[in-house]
């Protein structure tokens, strides 16, 4: 018998974060992610860390900014309406180049919406979310194991670039249970010490300032160009995606997170029926795997995008492959509205035969 654990996605992301050295958590409860603060409130004090249930989402994101400015690995988590409240703080973190991990276990909206799964926060996550034209790193796990792995990856990427990282999951990935093989954290060689952090090391004459306010002539423009230069490097070096049976595929299905899991079964069923169908699953939603989609164009493949919303990622796919026909099938999030593999298979069939 193997030693795999059997845990929820929410627990896995919390376990991964603690393994990565996160010792500060600030949050406010909301369904469907409250297992995260529940787990961390129990386990973090044992590690000498600090768990704070803040008075609000706005307070918690600003506590994260503060902990990050002091060089600590710290995180917050919430679900869609709570993440909306945090957007101001995320913009300040981006502007101040404060790393940190933000977990969004999406529920449906807009407004308070409902408590079931949704992918309707894609735009908010990858296009900035708050004001000021910034980006954050956005990771989209599709399994309990990846919830664990990406908490670790999120911290490493965030520290490497001094850009906040978000895990974009949903109620399916957060609440389902699967096997998990935890592994020990090994810090990447290239992570520099945070000599920018405000740790009061008291060297006379050396001033460290962490801020997002730039009023000097040309200062802010230079700062913005610096931020966008980092995004360009990330676009080049940090793209991650999973490709399944793409080589001979005539039709490439694309989906992320929970929808990708449903698509994986649909593709297996399609292959059984003799259709040459593959899957391109973006793992980093920002930076987006544009080059992988461009490959489809060269290979003469057609693309079919599945989402649990009314069409968001499909816009980025279309931007990446302007001359290729990209079809979309989505479902508006809402009670009992999870698509099934059989439903996706029907769409694959009709697109394949078109």
């Amino acid at each position, binding site marked *: 018998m193997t030693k795999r654990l059997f845990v929820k996605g929410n627990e896995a992301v919390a376990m991964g974060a603690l393994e990565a050295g996160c010792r500060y958590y600030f949050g406010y409860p909301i369904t469907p992610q409250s297992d995260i603060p529940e787990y961390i409130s129990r386990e973090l004090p044992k590690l000498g860390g600090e768990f704070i249930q803040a008075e609000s989402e706005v307070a918690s994101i600003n506590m994260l900014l503060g902990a990050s400015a002091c060089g600590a690995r710290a995180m917050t988590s919430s679900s869609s309406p709570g993440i909306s409240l945090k957007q101001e703080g995320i913009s300040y973190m981006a502007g101040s180049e404060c790393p940190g991990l933000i977990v969004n276990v999406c529920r449906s909206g807009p407004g308070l919406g409902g408590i079931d799964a949704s992918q309707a926060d894609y735009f908010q996550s990858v296009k900035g979310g708050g004001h000021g034209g910034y980006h954050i790193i956005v990771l989209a796990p599709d399994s309990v194991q990846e919830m664990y792995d990406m908490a670790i990856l999120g911290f490493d990427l965030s520290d490497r670039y001094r850009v906040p990282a978000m895990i974009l999951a949903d109620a*399916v990935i957060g609440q389902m249970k*699967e096997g998990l093989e935890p592994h020990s954290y090994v810090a990447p060689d290239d992570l520099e010490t945070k000599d920018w952090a405000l740790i009061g090391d008291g060297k006379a004459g050396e001033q460290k300032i962490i801020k997002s306010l730039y009023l000097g002539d040309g200062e802010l423009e230079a700062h913005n160009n610096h931020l966008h230069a980092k995004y360009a490097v990330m676009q080049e070096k940090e793209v991650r995606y999973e490709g399944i049976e793409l080589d001979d595929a005539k039709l490439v299905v694309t989906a992320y997170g929970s929808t990708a899991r449903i698509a994986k079964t649909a593709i297996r069923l399609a292959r059984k029926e003799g259709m040459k169908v593959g899957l391109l699953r973006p793992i980093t939603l920002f930076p987006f795997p544009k080059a992988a989609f461009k490959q489809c164009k060269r290979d003469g493949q057609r693309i079919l995008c599945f989402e649990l919303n009314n069409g968001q990622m499909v816009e980025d796919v279309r931007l990446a492959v302007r001359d290729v026909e990209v079809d979309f099938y989505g479902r508006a999030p809402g009670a009992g509205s*999870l698509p099934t593999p059989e439903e996706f298979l029907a769409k694959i069939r009709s697109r394949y035969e078109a």
Partner: protein
Amino acid sequence: MNHDVFMAGFGGQGVLLIGNLLAYATIMEGNDASYFPAYGVEKRGGAATCTIVMADKNVGSPVVGEPEAALLLNPLSMEKYYDRVRSGGFALVNSSLIDDDGSSRDDLQKVLIPANEMALEVGDSRLVNMIVLGAYLEYSKVVKMETVKEALKVVLPERNHRFLPMNYQALERGADFCRQALSMK
């Protein structure tokens, strides 16, 4: 190996517990499993469903449209989900609460099981879920009965281990009933 089962009842019948247990036992045997629950906000009486997908490795979709097997514990579940069971599949119907005998379909195997009465015979009305799980294990053979018993020992807090024999008995009774029902067909 590639199996999936959908379980539905009302909150308090223990549907989520046996779904959890089955997925955990599958993982204990070295295979892969996903357990995906969906339930109302009520503690008792609301709808509770879960889907368990089991495979040698790499479970695909944790969501299943037409399940291979369905365990239907109350009338509402029968009404909502009976028609979804895959053709050639298996339906286990709790006849203690469900009047519908499933005669609207003859393209699947069905077993009508008086789970509430059987639970009371073993000694506790709360054993309905274990009766039903035992019956499913007998039909599917997806994990060994022994592994499920082992998993129950791990899942159950130590202070409740005195209830283990009763639960084991319920699992066995469910399996026996299903074996007989299937052999008569």
